[in-house]
């Protein structure tokens, strides 16, 4: 759980970094180029298999863990301590994970499926033809219900990370008098900032916001 979790946290970081191109002027070209690189580089493609494996493993482990843990107490309490002794989101990782999974399926259908199996227009940069994923984003994020679904997805992700980040460290045994508080703060910052950045993307697209910059290139 913890290992795959940390792996997925690293993925989120990369994903967030690449996609952050869309916030800026020149974002369209930068983003499409980056996406092209991610979509065609052989190493990245191999890593993608790893990523899928990571997701699937994390999901299977998660459900197995939840089911097995639930089976350990056949006779339930009439009254529970609720939030007095633990946070609701630490107890709701399976629920939050399920919400994220639902979101993930929608998300894959929106972007990953067409980029792999066709259905996207192409654009030409310096004579090189690349898929116009940016255009796809514009399309997808023009619908209100999609915006709401994405916002909910990011919201679930934030709570999931809020527990998952520090929990992964605890499970790996990386607990230290001095550094654990630091890890906890890092976890909180990560859990708020990363989902927030993701959440801003559909909003930027929908409202047509952009951050003006000169010749900024985030990647490549």
């Amino acid at each position, binding site marked *: 759980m913890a290992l795959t979790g940390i792996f997925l946290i690293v993925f989120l970081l990369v994903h967030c970094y690449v996609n952050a191109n869309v916030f800026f002027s020149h974002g369209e070209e930068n983003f499409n180029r980056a996406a092209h690189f991610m979509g065609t580089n052989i190493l990245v493609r191999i890593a993608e298999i790893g990523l899928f494996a990571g997701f699937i493993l994390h999901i299977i482990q998660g459900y197995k863990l939840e089911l097995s843990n639930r089976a*350990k*107490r056949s006779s339930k309490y009439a009254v529970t301590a609720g939030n007095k002794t*633990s946070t609701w989101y630490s107890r709701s990782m399976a629920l939050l994970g399920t919400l994220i999974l639902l979101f993930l399926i929608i998300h894959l259908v929106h972007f990953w499926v067409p980029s792999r199996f066709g259905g996207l227009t192409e654009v030409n940069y310096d004579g090189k033809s690349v898929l116009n994923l940016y255009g796809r984003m514009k399309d997808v994020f023009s619908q209100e219900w999609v915006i709401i679904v994405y916002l909910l997805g990011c919201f679930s992700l934030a709570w999931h990370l809020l*527990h998952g980040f520090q929990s992964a460290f605890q499970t790996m045994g990386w607990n230290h008098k001095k550094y654990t508080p630091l890890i906890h703060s890092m976890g909180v910052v990560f859990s708020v900032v990363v989902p927030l950045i993701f959440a801003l993307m559909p909003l930027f697209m929908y409202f047509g916001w952009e951050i003006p910059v000169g010749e900024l290139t985030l990647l490549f």
Partner: protein
Amino acid sequence: MQHYNMDLTLKVWRQQNRNAQGGFETYQVKDISSEMSFLEMIDVLNEKLIHEGGDPIAFDHDCREGICGTCSMVIDGRPHGPWKGTTTCQLHMRAFKNGETIVIEPFRANSFPVLKDLVVDRKAFDRIIQAGGFISVNTGNAVDGNAIPIDKDDADNSFAAASCIGCGACVAACKNSSAMLFVSAKVSHLALLPQGAPEKSTRVAAMVDQMDKEGFGSCTNTYACEAECPKEISVMNIARLNREYLASSFNADK
């Protein structure tokens, strides 16, 4: 401190034996002094039940000074009741107000089967200790007590872990019925001392293995155990167990 008397409604789990179907019974108790301990309040109810020809409530208790780990009970959803760092026997009725309804249940976990009413079987803990919760030294084998100096911080941390009373509140509090806090406290207690170091790799593997066999759940780090532990054992110990366990699984010689 102002003393006061109170009338209470108690909803208590009654179960004839391990295999019987259990359920809640409701009782009224009157004129309970705020100076009574929680168990003394149950004593009052039991005396009343016996007097009326009923069957008193069976519950585990012994030292009544917070150290033997016998008393259990989940009071309004809280193992050992609402006070922090306190066993049920040390919980006093000052914690409650006149007219309150209190729900009293046994520790619930499949690994702690109910024997009668609020009494549960915690032998699984003994079997986990048997699996490796000791230092293999026969009587008479010891060197002088001061032969091996021990870093004071290590000794203090070891002591803090060793103050676990084995009551099982961690299991009762955990949504997964995990025994990680109990097992990790013992692993830490012994691993932190030079005397316990030679066996630490086999110990942690054997104890975790036995814990799984006993049917306790897995830890998902909600830390409800730490919040409910009457001896306030830290979840730092769980991290230490995880570390020791990982190290043990990479140990090629074992």
